[in-house]
């Protein structure tokens, strides 16, 4: 019989699989451990120190995100010591961070503020003079960095390096001057950055934020409604959340930004590319076609219903087949189609119209 590995968590014996961290087990067991620098997609850094807990046999508090469970460990995530740790740590964070919502939450939710409220961190320790240096005038159109909101948790730089393999940004300087920057403080446009916006997605405080909603003075993320959909820029099928201002577009709702779902919940694991994350303005663009158009005998395009448009297209295709044979037809599918759509294209080609002339633009 294989012995089951267990730890004691808050006085309860719970099982673990060797290699699991204290945080993994606590999450599964519903025991609350706060984190800021943790992202399941990244190697644990243990740098923000919010997840420290007591572990038997260890003199020091241990980071739950980076400490692997050991057989028989007794883990305490709620104690006087841990509580004092959380309060004083968050109190210290707040001396180096604006703590009014107006200032500190400029779009994305600020997890540090939420946590400070949750653990009743002191806000009367004063405010440091420290104004962190950062690069100015980055002319990239999508990503904005506010060093005053940055807590140097390095989630963005680690994401850029470990997940994207791009390493366009880095921790720079040291000590209280530590900040996030690029090579020679260049604009992201002049670096290896691919504008995936993953830095925005992983940032816990909104120091990395999307430029457009900021410059347009749009609503903060908490006031927006999220609508899950599939990205239609390519066939991968990434899930994304349209952030809709319900009052926008004359009360019909307006998409004002795109965010990625929680890592681990969808196949794209919270990742998106530049198109999925930033190219959404077409949705409400005035040039966008919103109904099918059929060219009439007068040579002009006329609005039509889907039924009508499909009927005209079918008649046209079948007319070519009848007059010239099925191999006079060919189908080229778009790389923006999903796999299921591509399947249907070859189905209509082979089964409905009888030709093997079918191709997909991404296949070359």
């Amino acid at each position, binding site marked *: 019989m294989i012995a089951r590995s267990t730890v004691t968590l808050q006085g309860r014996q719970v099982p673990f699989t060797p290699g699991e961290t204290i945080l993994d087990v606590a999450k599964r067991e519903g025991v609350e451990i706060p984190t800021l620098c943790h992202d399941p997609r990244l190697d644990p850094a243990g740098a923000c*120190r919010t997840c420290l807990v007591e572990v038997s046999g260890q003199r020091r508090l241990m980071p739950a995100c980076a400490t692997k469970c050991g057989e028989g460990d007794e883990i305490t995530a709620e104690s006087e010591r841990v509580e004092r740790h959380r309060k004083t*740590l968050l109190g210290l964070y707040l001396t180096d961070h604006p703590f009014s919502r107006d200032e500190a939450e400029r779009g994305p939710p600020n997890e540090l503020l939420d946590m400070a409220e949750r653990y009743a961190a002191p806000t009367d*320790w004063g405010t440091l003079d420290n104004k962190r240096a950062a690069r100015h005038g980055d002319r990239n159109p999508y990503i904005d960095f506010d060093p005053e909101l940055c807590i140097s948790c390095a989630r963005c730089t680690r994401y850029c390096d470990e997940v994207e393999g791009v390493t366009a940004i880095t921790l720079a300087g*040291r*000590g209280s001057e530590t900040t996030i920057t690029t090579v020679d403080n260049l604009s992201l446009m002049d670096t*290896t950055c691919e504008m995936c916006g993953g830095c925005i997605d992983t940032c816990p405080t909104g120091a990395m934020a999307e430029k457009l909603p900021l410059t347009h003075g749009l609503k903060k993320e908490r006031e927006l409604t999220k609508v899950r959909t599939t990205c239609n820029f390519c066939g991968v099928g990434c899930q994304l959340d349209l952030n809709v201002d319900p009052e926008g577009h004359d009360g019909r709702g307006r998409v004002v930004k795109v965010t990625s779902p929680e890592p681990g919940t969808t196949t794209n694991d919270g990742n998106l590319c530049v198109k999925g994350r930033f190219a959404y303005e077409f949705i409400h663009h005035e040039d966008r076609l919103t109904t099918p158009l059929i060219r009439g005998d007068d040579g002009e395009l006329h609005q039509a219903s889907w039924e009508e448009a499909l009927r005209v297209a079918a008649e046209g295709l079948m007319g070519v087949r009848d007059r010239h044979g099925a191999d006079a037809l060919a189908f080229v599918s778009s790389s923006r189609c999903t796999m299921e759509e591509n399947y249907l294209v070859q189905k209509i080609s082979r089964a409905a119209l009888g030709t093997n002339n079918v191709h997909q633009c991404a296949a070359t």
Partner: protein
Amino acid sequence: MSKEDQQHARGHLPDQLREAGGLTEGVARDLSRKTGLPEAEIYGVASFFHLLADPNTKLRVCTGLSCQMAGADEVLAAAKAAGLPVEGASCLAACDRPPAVLKERRVLPAVGLAQIAAAKGDWNAVHAPGDSADAAWAGAVGPERDDPEHLALNLHGAPDRSASAFAAAQAAGVDALFDQLETSGLQGRGGAGFPAHIKWRAVHGQAETTRYVVLNADEAEPATFKDREILLRRPDRVLEGLAIAAWAVGAKDVWLYLRGEFEIPLQAIEAEIERAHAEQRFGDIRFHTHSGQGAYICGEETALLEALEGKRGMPRLRPPYPVEAGLWGKPTLVHNVETIACVPAIVERGAEWFRALGRTEAGSKLYCVSGHVQRPGVYEAPLGITLDELVEMAGGYVGELKAFSPGGASSGFLPASKRNVPMDYKSLADAGSMLGSAGVVVLNGTVSMRWAVQHQLRFFEDESCGQCAPCRIGTYYLRESLDKSAGREPGTMAEGSPKGGGEKERLTHVADVAWQMNEGSICGLGQAAPLPLTTALKHFPDEFAAS
């Protein structure tokens, strides 16, 4: 690029940055093209290290406490007024010859206002007094005799290139050597006081067969300059100790990490390495040197390993410990210079002999004495010596003893009433301080504690790596709170006391912040950084009281 290629390229990065003249515009991108490493990463590494990040500064005046007590502030101000490319620097490990000035990578001792004036605005013309060539120099070392029977380090001893201790260790065998180390009671001399034999046995017992030995010669704890003297005077002992360690734990490659400001000690150890390699003194064991680039934190062993790998010198989370996963993930034995230099004598003269050299704990110890004493220098004395005895070796006090810092900035301050505490690891810890690196600074009645604390806090703020919040924010918070509570900057040595007008309430949170830094910081820097303030508040409350 393969993982090995990238590892290789990274390891050379700091040297390449230095050769490129430091971090100027375009350098990171150029090096990225040459090495294949990401340009942002190169920029991030260069910006971390003071000697790389600011290449236009040619002179750096030491702002360590002992140099400040000798007027470093005036020297810095005069140099700035003369238009020299100068900045302040954290302790340069020349506290025995203050004020010290770093010229590019060379430490010049005892540079005063006269030397600054004589340079007539040309940084290259700043020289140490009476030494226009800025040649190699060494400090005072006691006892002033060659006495191998009573001194484990024996800094006045003649070089011993016989490798007899290396041969004796091999003849005795690994287990006997480990037992000998254990019986000797040798503790890590870098500051932690960890029993050496445990680390040796741990590395030896790893399943992974590629192992390394790393020498920590990144001596930068303020008030500490003993490793400098060992490297200069007994490089033979250092190499033999390393060779014994490498043989014992099964390593072929030994890395010596010297702080970048140790240009002269580096020359001494490199000459000895060249000779040892040529003589094949230690068989096929190879020694490699690495110059630091200006970062106190790299004296923390895991930060040192990161820097050696060519990364930003930020400490790693432990576990795993370096004995298990150290340099490039391989089992690694990391030791301070002094610890390793004790080993040949232990092998030659026996564990009991070494143990008996100490009084309250095992062995003799190098104490660095500076500040208000007659003859600052490095003194080899029994572990457990008292301050008065130690200062007697250093020629006696200058003025009346007011306070002392027993083991570097990290040990905080103790009042004169603690002068009889045995200066060993346990007794000083029990007194709320620590032996640390045994960098002893003696303060007489002319020094305001507030002023002294302000300089120590400034040091930790400048040298925090910035990785974890308690240290990054806490070091800044404490320094700023003390400044603001006085309503002004440090002021003069004698007049650091509050004159009113400050934000006194900021000091009310010091206890909580210090508790958090101690509990929450990743490494010893942040854990110890509040001590100068908390110990001074405890022992000298009047100097911080509201006026």
